[in-house]
């Protein structure tokens, strides 16, 4: 860690240095190159190569003016971050480089994480009291940019400050100005909840096909749009902004042409409430938030469990508890997702394993929600949300058919010709009889309902039956079997993960295999219900290591369910695992195995 810090500091210094002398040079800063799988260091490079392979592109482009943007945007993968100094994006400058419209406003940068910041203004503001000339002050804006990046990538600041003071030792006012600008950039990041992360999964080999770069939040958003299309349902998103989930609201609000309505509600409770109301009316109801928002939505999710209505709930996890570390990643909402409601209130829970996987997981979550008439929780996290990866663009024709059948005929089993809302099909799902359907008028609510008929029931046996029916319905949700990657087929150690740890775990496993040792990897995308073969998979391995960015939440579930003494490895630092760290952890257990085998 210290080493990384030092390198970053010196690199950063180099950057500051060069930029100070070359103020119009388009700086490109990138976290580790895409092809280095899973490296989560914090190197900072100049982009000195012109042609970048898709897997070797800068993650962040700092464009101090339109020219810099124009010249370099082609190198930035979609989903990459553009930190842009808006002050220079005035008509004259735009015209000079041939921009007809302002690219920051015309939507042409929609595919990127655009961070437009008035860097010059902010820097001048920060230096207003220093007595520096406007020109000198303006020069410091690169340090502002560096400060902001340092914040985003969680870099310590002392080194840079020391460096600046040393470098400008003979011009202390300039040194202080640079430090001030640097800090202003850093503070801007913290106060406005700027989020950045680097998520890198590069599979050993890309299968053939057409690719693009995508972030997790974009993939979630596209997944929602696509699910609505596949289900031929209008989409209604009820949401309240919260880091790092807000971008899903932003993204979806751009796609109203897909029959998507987005509503920024007065709070999280209203957001999920409105989504449930829309679901009741036959729309695909969706709500998106982060951990604290899930806590607030709990009561309404419980109502949806009782009413057995489809609802998609997305939790982009961040550091907790409480407000915690809003711009950092974590996986500590798993147990909240499963248990964070009063009463026995089961819901399916899914988690994507990479930015691109967010798309598939949402589609699968919607399948479950619609098929079983249940709220479904999807647990993404900050690393996936803002991280990006090359994504094999799905073939629209191959997307699943998610169309639903609304009830049209009364279904009372007593021949009364009434509609009974709690009659179930073979999957235990009740019918979705939406208002406006003649003859099916009925009432639902949060009180316990009589099995079948659905009127209020306080009958003890009925309650016991309904509690078990709701549980059985969720336990019976069909989910794909767990696939294990165990190339040689003779590994004794299985690493089982879930969520965004897929990248670093995969990288660590590959590194170990490269060393000639065997290790198996499996990654859970379905946390509730578990894949049917999970118990059997666990039983196959002598050691099961479960790395998590929490204090062992999946471990708890596995131990309880399968009575397997899994090894829990945890880190709750707001940062993804590092490949090297995992290699060390895994090796400890491999060591024993090898020794034993020998």
């Amino acid at each position, binding site marked *: 860690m210290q080493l990384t810090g030092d390198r970053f500091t010196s690199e950063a210094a180099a950057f500051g240095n060069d930029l100070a002398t070359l103020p119009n040079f388009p700086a490109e800063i990138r976290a580790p190159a895409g092809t280095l799988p899973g490296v989560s260091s914090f190197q900072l490079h100049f982009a000195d190569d012109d042609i970048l392979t898709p897997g070797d592109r800068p993650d962040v482009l700092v464009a101090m003016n339109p020219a810099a943007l124009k010249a370099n945007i082609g190198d930035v993968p979609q989903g990459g971050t553009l930190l842009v100094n808006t002050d220079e994006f005035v008509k004259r400058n735009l015209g000079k480089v041939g921009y007809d419209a302002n690219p920051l406003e015309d939507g042409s940068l929609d595919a990127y994480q655009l961070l437009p910041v008035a860097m010059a203004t902010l820097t001048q503001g920060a230096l207003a009291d220093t007595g520096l000339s406007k020109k000198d002050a303006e020069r410091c804006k690169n340090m502002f940019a560096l400060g902001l990046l340092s914040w985003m990538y969680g870099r310590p600041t002392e080194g840079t400050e020391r460096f600046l003071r040393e470098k400008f030792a003979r011009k202390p006012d300039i040194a202080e100005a640079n430090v001030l600008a640097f800090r202003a950039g850093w503070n801007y990041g913290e106060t406005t909840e700027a989020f950045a992360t680097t998520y890198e999964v590069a599979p050993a080999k*890309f299968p053939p096909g*057409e690719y693009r770069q995508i972030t997790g939040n974009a993939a979630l958003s596209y997944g929602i749009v696509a699910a609505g299309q596949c289900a031929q349902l*209008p989409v209604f998103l009820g949401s309240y902004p919260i880091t790092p989930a807000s971008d899903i609201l932003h993204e979806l609000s751009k796609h109203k042409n897909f029959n998507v309505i987005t509503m920024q*509600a007065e709070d999280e409770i209203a957001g999920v409430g*409105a989504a449930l109301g*829309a679901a009741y009316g036959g729309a695909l109801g969706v709500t998106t938030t982060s951990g604290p928002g899930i806590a607030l939505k709990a009561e309404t999710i419980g109502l949806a469990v009782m009413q057995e209505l489809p609802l998609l709930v997305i939790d982009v996890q961040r550091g907790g508890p409480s407000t915690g570390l809003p711009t950092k990643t974590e996986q500590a909402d798993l147990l909240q997702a499963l248990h964070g409601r009063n009463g026995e209130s089961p819901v399916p829970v899914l988690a994507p394993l990479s930015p691109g996987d967010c798309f598939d997981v949402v589609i699968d979550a919607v399948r479950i929600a619609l098929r079983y008439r249940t709220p479904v929780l999807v647990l993404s996290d900050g690393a996936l949300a803002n991280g990006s990866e090359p994504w094999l*663009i799905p073939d629209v024709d191959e997307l699943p058919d998610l169309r639903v059948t609304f009830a049209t005929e009364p279904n009372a089993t007593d021949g009364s010709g009434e509609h009974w809302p709690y009659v179930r099909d073979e999957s235990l799902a009740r019918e979705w009889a939406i208002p406006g359907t003649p003859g099916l008028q009925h009432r639902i*609510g949060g009180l316990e309902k009589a099995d079948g008929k659905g009127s209020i029931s306080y009958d003890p046996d009925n309650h016991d039956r309904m509690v078990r029916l709701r549980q059985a319905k969720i336990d019976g949700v069909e989910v794909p079997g767990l696939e294990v990657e165990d190339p040689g087929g003779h590994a004794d150690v299985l690493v089982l993960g879930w969520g965004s740890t897929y990248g670093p775990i995969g990288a660590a496993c590959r590194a170990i295999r490269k060393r000639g040792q065997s290790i198996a990897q499996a990654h859970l995308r379905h946390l509730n219900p578990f894949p049917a073969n999970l118990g059997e998979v666990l039983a196959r391995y002598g050691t099961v290591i479960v790395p998590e960015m929490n204090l062992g939440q999946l471990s708890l579930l596995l131990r309880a369910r399968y009575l397997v003494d899994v090894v829990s490895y945890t880190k709750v630092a707001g940062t993804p695992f590092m490949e090297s760290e995992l290699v060390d952890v895994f090796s400890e257990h491999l060591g024993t195995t090898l020794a034993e085998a020998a």
Partner: protein
Amino acid sequence: MTTVDLELGLKPKDFKSDQEVRWCPGCGDYVVLNAMQSFLPSLGLKRENIVFISGIGCSSRFPYYMNTYGMHSIHGRAPAIATGLAVTRPDLSVWVVTGDGDALSIGGNHLIHALRRNVNLKILLFNNRIYGLTKGQYSPTSETGKLTKSTPMGSLDHPFNPLSLAIGAEATFVARTLDNDRAQLTSILTAAAQHRGSALVEIYQNCPIFNDGAFDVLKEPGEKEQRLIPVEHGQPIRFGPDREHAVLRNDRGGLEIGPYDENRVVVHDATTDDPAYAFALSRLSTQDLAHTVTGVYRNVDRPTYDDQARAQVSAATDAKPADLRSLLRGRDTWTVG
């Protein structure tokens, strides 16, 4: 909303569900239920196109008794849930049923936001100035000093005037009536149904069990004439056994009650754009019911949230086809292999 079809020939009884009505005998909720069931046929809507969404409370059991679609939701959240339904389903007539605790205590925020958004919702607030379902705690409309189970030494909070609050929250339609005034209730329900946007209708409702007689002074002959101030659009506001009292403008920019005076009497105009007028009217009603203004205070037009939300979808759809393939591809792709 669906086109009005008076030929449906529905009768009040067609709006009764098969559920036994379970309010206490004598509860004011019965009267409102009956009035609603009698009124609905006049709307000319099919039963399946009407939805009642309630929160939790005695009054919130209302949907169970209506042969329409209905949802008995959770405490305080009905306006939020109903908003999602109204926004996505313009063909439905969406009604919210709520109580003084449900709407103004736990649900206060959703209520004021629904009102400012002007969502197409008709919100019936059953105000019995008490928590009925939980057996008699004071509510945000209870008079100060009220002795209840949770306030054995008297409640301390200054109550809300629900209509003042609603007007302060930019409501476009607000009205008040009494559970025993079937004629006024029906006419207000009609006006609310016709209003495009949110309509808040406060109904003073007697709870014979936990707050009996709370509104008796507004019902007793001899008393009520001195206290009730019914307003009618376009009519001078007069009341009293011999219509000898009137609402007059005062010189502090407000309204006051005084002896009828042809020159100073206020002619009620519910369409007054400036809410200061309806607000001033709302302040004539006092905690102790010395005076209570009933009728439609305010009924003005403003674009609704849901109409506009749908209009944005239409505009977007017209402007750009829903091409999923192109959305997923984005602008910058490359090919492997």
